[in-house]
């Protein structure tokens, strides 16, 4: 056994690759975790939107079934716009934080947060002001309308909470040039919410007109 104790001199090709470069290469486990999380979330909403059309077309009657008025578009257009626009400062924030420009990054993140908060406020306005005729329990149309938008808004609220943590971490220097990844993961989730809001806008607000 002692004959085995000599120090080896490996010559395999991967030997040279094994010396880790200074900057990490490849996707992280966190990246894949977020991708898969978004996949499962997206499937949930996709199924929900498919259910919307299923219920609409399964019965042969009119839609909305009990003669509710068609959805108002004012607040919903504003909220969808706000969330879609917020994608831009989010993308800028990912870059600036990674470059280590803390103030710029914080500014951008705060802008994203403000737009997200605007989304939530507009959604509440939509519920309160412009569309009070139908309720959650009046018919399938009302049920779909409130639960789909409600579930999405709940996700945005969670996103806003996460964003607070990211902003605090950046301000404290826990996130920055040396550790930019959580901002990028946050951004992935945020993009997902924005794209989703467009899909919901089209299905829930626009499609009843068709």
């Amino acid at each position: 056994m002692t004959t085995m104790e000599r120090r080896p001199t490996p010559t395999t090709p991967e030997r040279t690759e094994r010396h880790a470069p200074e900057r990490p290469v490849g996707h992280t486990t966190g990246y894949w975790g977020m991708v898969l999380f978004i996949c499962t979330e997206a499937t949930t909403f996709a199924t929900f939107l498919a259910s919307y059309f299923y219920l609409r077309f399964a019965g042969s009657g009119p839609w909305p079934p009990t003669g509710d008025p068609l959805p108002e578009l004012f607040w919903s257009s504003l909220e969808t716009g706000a969330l879609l626009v917020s994608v831009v400062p989010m993308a800028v924030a990912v870059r600036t934080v990674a470059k280590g420009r803390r103030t710029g990054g914080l500014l951008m993140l705060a802008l994203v947060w403000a737009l997200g908060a605007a989304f939530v406020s507009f959604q509440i306005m939509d519920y309160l002001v412009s569309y009070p005729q139908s309720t959650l329990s009046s018919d399938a149309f009302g049920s779909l309308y409130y639960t789909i938008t409600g579930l999405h808004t709940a996700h945005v609220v969670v996103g806003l909470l996460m964003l607070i943590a990211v902003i605090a971490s950046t301000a404290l220097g826990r996130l920055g040039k040396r550790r930019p990844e959580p901002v990028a993961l946050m951004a992935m989730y945020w993009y997902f919410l924005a794209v989703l809001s467009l899909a919901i806008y089209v299905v829930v607000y626009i499609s009843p007109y068709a």
Partner: protein
Amino acid sequence: MSTSGVLPERRIAEQTVGAVLDETWEEEPGLKGWITTVNHKRIGRRYLVTAGLFFTLSGIQAVVLRTQLITPNNQFLDPEWYNQLFTLHGTTMIFWFVTPMLFGFGNFFLPLMIGTRDMAFPRMNAFSYWVFMMSGLLIFASLPFQMAPNAGWFNYVPLSGDYQQQINIEFYTLGVAFLGVSTTVGAINFIVTALKMRAPGMSLARMPIYVWSVVATSFMVVFALPPLNLANFMLFMDLRFGTKFFDPAAGGDVVLWQHLFWLFGHPDVYIIVLPALGIISSIIPTFSRRAIMAYPLIVFATVGTAIIAFGVWAHHMYAVGLSNVSMTFFAAATLTITIPSGIQMVAWVGTMLAGRIVITPAMLYAFGFIAAFMIGGVTGVMFGVVGFDQQVTDSYFVVAHFHYVLFGGAVLPILAGLFYWWPKMTGRMTSPKAGYWSFGLVFFGFNLLFFPMHISGLLGMPRRIYTYDDGLGWTVWNFASTIGSYVLGVGLLLTLGIFAHSLLRGPRAPDDPWGSNTLEWATGSPPKAYNFPVVPTVHSANPMWDGQTLTTMETYRHDEQRTMTEEHMSVRTSELDGRFEMTMLMPEESPLPFIVALCILATVTSLLFSVYFLVGIFAALGTAALAYWLWHRPGVEE
């Protein structure tokens, strides 16, 4: 070979770095360590034990059900008890036994098989376990109070709507959704672990088939669970807050539930069966003394099954009145999905024929699996024939079919896997002779229990009836089934006894008792907390047999990037080729997974009993704990 059965390469590696690693990976002892552990092997064992316990409880329910059916017009159970018992039996066997049991194997063996030190997200892993355990306790707690779900495991509306006590159904909707958190998190964890943490050199083409099957299953979980969660959410909203998703009088539709449920439900069959097939694909090469035949085809078959499985759900609904066009489509898909299974079946039998067979209890269970899965498979093909499906669906024929698939196709492989991996998990051997008896009794009991159900089904006996009249030709078959359930029960008890005996008296197991081909056998029996003292470089799909992989454990024993002695670290490699990327820091043990899971349990329980202010408090506590958890991440320098 030394007398203690330690592989020489591992012995040398351990001598070099074992002592340091032991210290680095040492866990806190006692109750605190028990709650805070993130060690994938301890969590895996827990999964197996907890799922085994749920299997026992659910199995006892089944024996009680069979006892009610032993004679016509039996008065042993009243209908309400019968209906709750059969619903809970199905629900818990599907959700709280098979999948978690296979997740337990995955937890223990996936990191070992790919040559890494832990799962990608160890604390998430602990969290999945706690959620699984707590949701299981919640659902089983419903039975003593006669609050158990009672609308069948697929919980069709409107029966599950206004026609049952609300609390029974809410145990189902909330319990299943609660468990869904665990399953989803666990699945994501498996995928990321297999993608990013394989030992250097293990390209996807060298990944063990078992790992492929767990990954395929996990992908299915990611995409199949959302429809189920959505359906449960809708039903919960209907019951509690008066939404109208399933109310036809207000624009809802009852068939929507069926579509959503089976959009999950049929993939779920493969979620259950695929990892079990993976176990079989691990056992057969070992005991046929050759590599598995047609490895790439089996991988294609596994992935293909996972994809096609999403296109067959409506064959559960042929009696609903679908259009002929859609029935034709789903019939075609249903028949297509048997081709991947056919490929695997031929590959297994071919491997045996081309190899040299060593008979062990695990291999006998694999034989039993092939016979049972073959029968379950051919009856499955029959359901692709729409007319025949309409004739026997919801009869005992379908009960026979899916027990051949689920007991034969999943429980027999689980037992095979237990006999196969027991020495690795516990460091003890089991008695082979007793193992043969276990197989004999279980296999005989299983066939006596389920085979007659084919016949009673063809003779017109519908499923889910708590009693039946004499003179319909069903009496003798039901009697045989019930006797079979007793034999099976005795066989399973004997199996339990074998494992208990092994724990207490079994001889010490060597590192590689069976002469296997995959990397889990390169660790100690049982493995050390760090699994591999030196992460090896994998040279082939059968690393234990290639004569090179093990040597690298010795070669790199002074290489800090392979030994990682200073902290909890693991190697990260590229997704496709398994090229080394970097070493990464892994989280330490933590009580947070337990605390967050507990908060969710409290939230769900408060929601169940409509105590809304507590829902708010516990949800806030859980969110706070989760925030604290995410705030303190590994590698963060304050």
